[in-house]
């Protein structure tokens, strides 16, 4: 019986005007997104190649000068433009995308100036995630808002239920058909976009795409189902389809516009963090304290004479300064991560926000990717330090007084660039994506079930006459 209902509902959807308009709209927008992505991604890649070339050139120069220079100079590693950003841009352009490190510490991160145009009014990028979040949620509501109230108005509801079909089956059939119809539209759009990107793009797509596309579609189906459930709920609580439409629109505005747009307010109001000025003040105070308590002569330096006894004091002082600053800053970064994650969790009441976070995990971009690169860079920094210490230990002309900031009292021998360990950013593994996304997935499934259950209860009590 379920199949009969499903077939009827799907055919009903397929022949409807809204399906045709949605299909045309989605395909056009997906194609437009793919074309602009292909165009801008190629340019971004070109720019990135220059930056990366300079980064390596700089490292090579430092290595040729000497190993200590290589160890103490701060270098900036930039994240590569993501080849699958057309699936979900995950706000990459606005998030930190460059990390400053030396062999002694991973210092800071920043959003490179020039990543986003500050004069261009902030708007979303035309990725699959954006189009889907906006249009799919909307179409799913459009397909369902009159599923019950509309049938009641056209008097077919009573007829349908006169058949040996339970109310649960009918409702499930309506939900499934809405999801399937919406997904047909999304798949058509995604296919168009995929072909366009593969043909027009710079051709740096990876094999992982084969898993990411189905993953995206699955998440999109979850979004469609959630909104379809809201639509059904709106449809059974209202007597006329007009009212259910208005309720559905209000729900949509609340989830797609109000909740995501309140995130910054939520973050600053409920999870405030220290100001950067205060943190800077703490660092300065710690520095002053260290300098005050340092033994006399700690600031002496004669770079021509590595074994000058004061250099050991200087190295100690510099090391203490580095550790003190690292402690304060790392704690601040943790506070930032916490603030961000808690804000996300609080805004996860909106299926649109949930969808955003889930697609970020599917595409392996945005915050997740940054955190992974940030952690990996710490590992790499450890390797680089180990490498440097081994070089220093092998050098008899070095006093081995580790100074993390200056080239004074450690090895002055050049090192072959080929031997220097290089950082390679690895794409997020499955576990790295599923782990953080799991809580959002659970929330989403819970939300879907709760809303569907409410709709079911309301439908069971619904007066079909």
């Amino acid at each position, binding site marked *: 019986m379920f199949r009969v209902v499903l077939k009827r509902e799907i055919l009903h959807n397929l022949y409807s*005007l809204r399906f045709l*308009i*949605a299909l045309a*709209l989605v395909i056009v*927008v997906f194609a*437009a*997104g793919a074309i*602009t*992505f292909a165009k*801008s991604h190629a340019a971004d890649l070109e*720019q990135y190649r*220059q*930056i990366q070339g300079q980064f390596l050139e700089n490292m090579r120069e430092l290595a040729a000068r000497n190993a200590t220079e290589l160890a103490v100079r701060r270098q900036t590693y930039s994240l590569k433009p993501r080849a699958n950003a057309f699936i979900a841009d*995950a706000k990459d352009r*606005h*998030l*930190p995308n460059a990390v400053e490190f030396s062999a002694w510490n991973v210092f800071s991160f*920043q*959003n*490179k100036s*020039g990543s986003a*145009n*500050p*004069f*261009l*009014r*902030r*708007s*979303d*990028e*035309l990725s699959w995630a954006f189009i889907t979040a*906006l*249009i799919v949620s*909307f179409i799913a509501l*459009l397909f369902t808002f*009159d599923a019950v109230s509309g049938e009641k108005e056209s008097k077919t509801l009573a007829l349908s239920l006169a058949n040996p079909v339970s109310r649960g089956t009918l409702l499930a059939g309506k939900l499934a058909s809405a999801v399937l119809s919406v997904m047909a539209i999304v798949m058509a759009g995604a296919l168009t976009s995929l072909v366009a990107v593969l043909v027009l793009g710079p051709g740096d797509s990876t094999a992982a795409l084969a898993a990411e596309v189905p993953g995206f579609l699955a998440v999109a189906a979850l979004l469609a189902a959630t909104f379809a459930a809201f639509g059904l709920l709106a449809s059974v609580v209202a007597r*006329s389809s007009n*009212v259910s*439409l208005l*309720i559905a*629109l*209000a729900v949509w*505005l609340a989830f797609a*516009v*109000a909740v*995501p*747009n*309140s*995130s*910054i*307010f939520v*973050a*600053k109001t409920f999870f405030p963090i220290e100001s*950067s000025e205060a943190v800077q003040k703490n660092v300065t105070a710690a520095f002053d304290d260290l300098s005050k308590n340092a033994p006399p002569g700690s600031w002496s330096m004669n770079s021509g004479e590595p074994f000058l006894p004061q250099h050991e004091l200087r190295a100690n002082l510099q090391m203490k300064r580095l550790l003190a600053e690292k402690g304060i800053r790392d704690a601040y970064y943790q506070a*930032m991560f916490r*603030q*961000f994650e808690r*804000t996300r969790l609080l805004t996860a009441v909106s299926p649109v926000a949930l969808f955003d976070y889930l697609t970020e995990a599917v595409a392996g971009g*945005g*915050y997740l990717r940054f955190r992974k690169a940030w952690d990996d860079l710490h590992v790499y920094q450890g390797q680089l330090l180990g490498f440097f210490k081994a070089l220093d230990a092998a050098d008899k002309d070095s006093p081995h007084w580790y100074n993390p900031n200056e080239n004074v009292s450690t090895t002055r021998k050049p090192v072959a660039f080929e031997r220097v360990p290089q950082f390679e950013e690895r794409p997020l593994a499955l576990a790295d994506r599923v782990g953080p996304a799991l809580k959002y997935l659970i929330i989403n499934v819970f939300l879907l079930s709760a809303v569907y259950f409410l709709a079911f209860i309301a439908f069971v009590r619904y007066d079909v006459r």
Partner: protein
Amino acid sequence: MIATIVRKEFLTNLVSPRFAIGFVLCLVLIPFSILINVSSYRERTAQYRVDRDAAEKAAAEVRVYSRLRPEVVLPPEPLSVFGKGISDQVGNRVRIWLGDKPLLAAGKTAAGDNPFLASFVSVDFVEVAAIIFSLLALIFSYDAFTREKEDGTLKLVMSNPVGRSTALAGKLLGILTTLLPVLVFSFLLGAVLILLARDVAFPAVDWGRIALLFALSLIYLAVFVFIGLLVSARSRSSVTSLVMCLFLWVLLVFIIPVVAASFAGGFVRIDSRDNLERVLRDLDTERDDKIKQAFKAQGIPEGWSCWWCMSDRDGMMEVYGNSRADFEMFRRRAMTSEPIRLEYADKRWASQKAYLDSLARQARAAERLSFVSPTGVFRTVAAAVCRTDLAAHGRLMDGARRYRETFISWLQGKNIFASFAWLTPADPAAFLTDDQLVEKRTGGEFKTSRDYEAWAEKQTDWRARWGKLNQAKLRGDSPDDFPFLDLSDMPRFQDRSGTLLSGLGSTAVDVGLLLVEAVLLFYLGFVAFIRFDVR
């Protein structure tokens, strides 16, 4: 007759659930947007005070002119509570350097202290208005003709001695009289919330601008009512009309602006920031070489040593306790290097300007493309009305650049690069020679600096060498011996607050576009209704 129709329409709309729900939507979303933006404005004001105090303190506590680098701190725009435009994407601080013209403002953006928050966006009143008013306009007009046709009342209406144009005008006025209270209510709500927020103060001119915003919203609303009427007159049934209207709404309000920005991002590229930095670095090297050459040509020695000095980038130099000859050397250095620095600021600006222009070009391209949708026009004009658009920011930055010129002319008017006051607060008449300095500092132990050098060469411990020179404290050897500069005549940055219509000249065309759109849509709707089959 028309009054009857208007009255009927108005009453029908008023009792309909859509009126109630639309009202509730405004009641929820408008305060939501205002409160969020008041809180953000409050935060930016607090930050502004901190920044301004820091800048004032830094500018007041200098003893020599070469350390003077005033910082312009731009106060947040009160109207940003209504339309934030790009005001929270650009910074609020501009430092005035000698060797560099202000490029982009520094300072915190919407994300504040946590850069990850930049991945979230936030709406303002204008945005909410653009979404809600268009939706309400469509919701009230999509079934203007189709519903009555389905109910069979349209025939009845038309059987009365009433022309189609009268019927249409009645419909239109009926819808507008229903929506007008909602619009007025939304603005009043916003205004009340602003009045209740103690720390947001609008000058009278700004209330005038809110009135302009209201007028603009009215035009915008009308455009969407006409769209709804047109669709309704061209549709066979209410459901078709509704679906069409809703898709049009999503397309015009949500999709086209994003597509416009995307296309601008992909096809109107901005120059590479890294390239700019490289060019500027090269220019800096060239400048430093040129300064070195000039020193050599004038016989100024390359290195320098001093008793107490502080040197920093951009030619900052503060010197104490030196001999007359050394002071003279520093003076000649500054006299030579600073004009070259100023000259290179102009050279740097050529590249910087090209970069800025590319940013502005992209932003304008996105704006122009978004004009396909009335929402794009509405947003652009609203940002201009709220003084938070690119043009307003550009005016402020131009003001900062002009202020730099004023500041430099002020310095030059004092002939300061050639003056000792550039690098030391000490009185030139009281400068001592090397020998006098050594004699005084060593308490008369050495009569000339040559004697001291001869003795010092034999010492192995540098601390003993310095100790000798510290035997007598000499007035003028350290900064603490001097008061801060009196800068009462220094020019200050002035942000000329505009009149009601200032800066809106260029948007007149955009408003004109919106009006033409409205008239055209109305005409099309009119024609469509004339040809409408009422049976």
